């Protein structure tokens, strides 16, 4: 079956129901992509399929026909994220790292800390801790320079009148990670707003609701 793997046209013979994860590791010899949970929860097997982050454990090989797959090997060890994960201490045991880096590679440029948290919420790390990972992504983004967000910043819930308010809010342009993090305590826009609203919702609805973000 033909598809594009890390920029090269390839023709790989494997069962159409085989997981993309297994085709990459067993048939293509690319073992950088890891299997963590095997059920789409942990993000260790994250690769880019037509530029979008997906869990390779949940993709049948038959759905890859004619499409483009990028794995950690496709970054060739020279991607800014691969450098900053080293310099900023973004990896400890390293098992989640390829998935973390591929998920980070799909983030919009100029991502706020909130964008990074949401964009990596499907990648679980149990030893490095997330602050080193976020720091590495911030440093890579600064190296790479600016650009426009591909995905709107997340709005948390719907409060406004349909058709006017309550829509997802784009983060203010140029708001860097530090600025986004600083605003989270009670800012007025983007990610900061979300945190402020979350807290007030908790106060109004009892512990049960407040606890859910923990």
């Amino acid at each position, binding site marked *: 079956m033909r598809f594009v793997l890390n920029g090269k046209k390839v023709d790989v013979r494997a069962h159409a129901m085989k997981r993309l994860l297994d085709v990459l590791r067993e048939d293509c010899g690319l073992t950088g992509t890891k299997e963590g949970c095997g059920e789409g929860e942990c993000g260790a097997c994250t690769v880019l399929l037509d530029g979008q982050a997906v869990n390779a454990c949940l993709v049948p090989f038959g759905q890859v026909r004619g499409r483009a797959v990028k794995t950690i090997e496709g970054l060739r060890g020279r991607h800014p994220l691969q450098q900053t994960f080293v310099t900023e201490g973004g990896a400890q045991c390293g098992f989640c790292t390829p998935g973390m880096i591929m998920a980070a590679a799909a983030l919009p440029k100029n991502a706020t800390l909130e964008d990074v948290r949401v*964009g990596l919420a499907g990648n679980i790390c149990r030893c490095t801790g997330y602050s080193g990972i976020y720091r590495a992504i911030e440093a890579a983004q600064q190296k790479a320079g600016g650009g426009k967000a591909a995905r709107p910043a997340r*709005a948390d819930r719907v*409060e406004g009148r349909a058709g006017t308010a309550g829509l997802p809010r784009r983060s203010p342009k140029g708001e860097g990670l530090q600025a986004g993090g600083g605003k989270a305590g009670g800012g007025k826009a983007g990610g900061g707003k979300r945190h402020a609203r979350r807290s007030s919702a908790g106060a109004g609805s009892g512990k049960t609701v407040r606890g859910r973000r923990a």
Partner: protein
Amino acid sequence: MRIAMSTLELIEPRSLKHALDVLRDSQPIVPLAGCTDIYVSINAGMPPGGRFLNLWNLDALRGIELRGQTVSIGALTTFSEIIRSPVAQKRLPALVAAAWEIGAVQIQNRGTLGGNVANGSPAGDSLPVLAATEAIVVLRSADGVRRVRFNGFYTGYRRTVMRPDELIAAIEIPPVGGQQWFRKVGTRAAQAISKIVMAAVRAPHPRIAFGSVAPTVVRAVRTEEVLAAGGTLDEAAAALLGEIAPIDDIRSTAEYRRRVACNLLRAFWTETA
């Protein structure tokens, strides 16, 4: 994987018509969209069947469009596409909010609205929105098209009125006519399956729907009537407790769900006042 590949078969239809012909002539067969539910079962060694129909390339089932005042969402539209859609953002903010809460980015990039409906989990996060907005499920078969009210679509736990030869082609959502509200309660924002989820529309006759409180997504019809008639929140909460039937399971307890259902009802009513 805990299953031998040789036991599984993937049929690749050339077109929607071909897919419908296969569904008519070649049962049993399980349609596959973004695979975010079915591959979890397959990976666990519990495939829902041996033969699968790959829908992923049927672009005729993709996209969001406005037809008159009705929003039509193709069954293969992913949650990421819903999040990015200006039409959805403007007209269906509750659906966009639900899409943000489903899995994480990797799941949102693959999971589809039609898949969420077809999977029919009582915890499916888009389902209360479709119930509260009185969506229509468009079913296609080799025989033609059939439109079914979403609120009559489920007949029991993961049971629907769909025939085996039918596919979900689209979800149609008529003008909502009121303020939309959505809230999911789970252990964390991403990945967690809902302990309880609620969507509602604040209108003269409010529309309120819950997930994870019964074998299917449910509309809280008596609660809606109490509020429409000018009843108090306490009266509405009492009505709500009489019409939901949550259970204890691995994610939560019945008692917690009853209490949080009432909290969510109060939050909806006060926040949309």
